[in-house]
């Protein structure tokens, strides 16, 4: 089942090799990707998610601000009625001191992420996650 994946960095992060790589990977799994690129302001991400109605939003960030940027932007996404149930995940290097503390991972999940991938999560984890998504008319929904 072909899905539409919205792939994006967060507002402060300029790294793009992660995005280039993930786009190729997700396309190889047979899905379509809209890649918003580097330093995506919250407003642009929200607007793009509303416009494209993706089956999944993948946020990738490695500059160490992922915890703060992620928490802020997931709150903005979940504030939209239309994006309440859209699966949204985040991964990469999310803190400046190595793997994020478990409490912070929990905070990110509590703020609305469906999954938070740690430093060493790679292709396999993402493949499995996408494989577990089932489509609904209102966008994707998670099998839990």
């Amino acid at each position, binding site marked *: 089942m072909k899905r539409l994946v919205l792939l994006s960095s967060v*507002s402060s992060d300029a790294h793009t090799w992660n*995005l280039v790589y993930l786009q190729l990977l997700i396309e190889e799994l047979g899905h379509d990707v809209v890649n918003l690129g580097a330093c995506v302001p919250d407003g642009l991400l929200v607007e793009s998610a509303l416009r494209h109605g993706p089956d999944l939003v993948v946020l990738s960030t490695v500059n*160490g601000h992922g915890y703060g940027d992620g928490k802020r932007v997931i709150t903005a996404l979940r504030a939209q009625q239309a994006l309440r149930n859209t699966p949204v995940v985040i991964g990469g*290097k999310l803190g400046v001191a190595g793997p994020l503390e478990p409490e912070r991972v929990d905070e990110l999940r509590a703020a609305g992420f469906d999954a938070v991938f740690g430093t060493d999560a790679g292709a396999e984890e993402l493949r499995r996650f996408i494989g577990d998504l089932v489509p609904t008319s209102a966008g994707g929904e998670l099998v839990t």
Partner: protein
Amino acid sequence: MTISEFIAQDGVLVVQPRMGFSDPDLMRRGLLAVAQASARAVATITLDSYTRVNDVPAAAVALRDGVPLNGYPILNHPPSVTRAMVEPLVAAGIPVQVRHGSALPLEIFAALAECGLAATEGGPVSYCLPYSRVPLPQAVDNWARACDLLARAPGAHLESFGGCMLGQLCPPSLLVAISVLEAMFFRQHGLRSVSLSYAQQTDRRQDMEAMDAMHRIAAVELSDVDWHIVLYAYMGVFPRTRSGALDLLGDAAELAVHGGADRLIVKTPAEAFRIPTIEENISAMEYAAAVADEVARGDPKTERLVDTGVYAEARTLVDAVLDLSPDIGRALRLAFARGVLDVPYCLHPDNAGLSRGVLDDSGRLRWSRVGRMPLPRPPDPGPGRSTPSADLLSALSYVERKYDRATL
């Protein structure tokens, strides 16, 4: 003392960390540690990513909530705090450079002036395309004004970041060309002291050739200003083992000496994982300085330079850009709009995105596609070895594998 006076002092390779912390007290301790290190070192204040994208409020929220940033938020801390922080170094004659990664640096440059700092880096292209989604024309304008401002400061020094461009998989000729062109842009906007960067890539002999090309072109184009070359230790995916990381850093120090760089910016064994601590920065600097010292005392390099065309390509690119307009900012804008310069894998909307770099079987970087750049068309690279994603990851991690394997 200015960076160039410092470098001229006793002819040894000057080393420099990439160091930045959000807490002024930690930052101050880091600066002092650099001043006291057993190496001839320039100190660095690396700014955080919120400041880089001009998001002062987000940095303020992080400071309020005690979330550590990946650098020093110079626009959030009062100038008096920053001034007091650098004062002991100024008194000891140790230059302090601010590294910022901003496409729109005017506000940052104004803050530098208020803090009594006059050495920084970047460039209208190298801090726009890989660091932002700001339209290139806007970055060029903002950089022009920022340079005009910086040039008024006594002892101003500006380093081009053009030798890095996404850190990896960009063939050296384009790195050389962008560094030279940005330095010429700085000169056109009043700077009298500049540096050109080159980042260590995948093959030592190719790097030597590229640094030689940079020397030759800069000698012609920048003959009326003070300039030197700064080498960056590898800027791509870093080895994960401690010995692999140090081995790569040691090779960078050797390359700096043999390739005629006057300054080396180091990386640490923490690179692959997280922001390095003060101690990790200091020991990486001291290690690089010791290697450089040993290399400088040893036999002068004996290997011959092989001409694989880096100089000719870089010269062609520089000339093609300069032909577009006598105003270098305008020439750079036109060059990207027309694809005369085209950075491989760069997602920025103002980059043509038609070029590609690859590693050949011997581990040298070369073009697989040149797009509309006026360069020789490379042979068809043929099919990849695996899936595109796996091939990309394998190219990105070539250096990491080489150095980590050597240590296993």
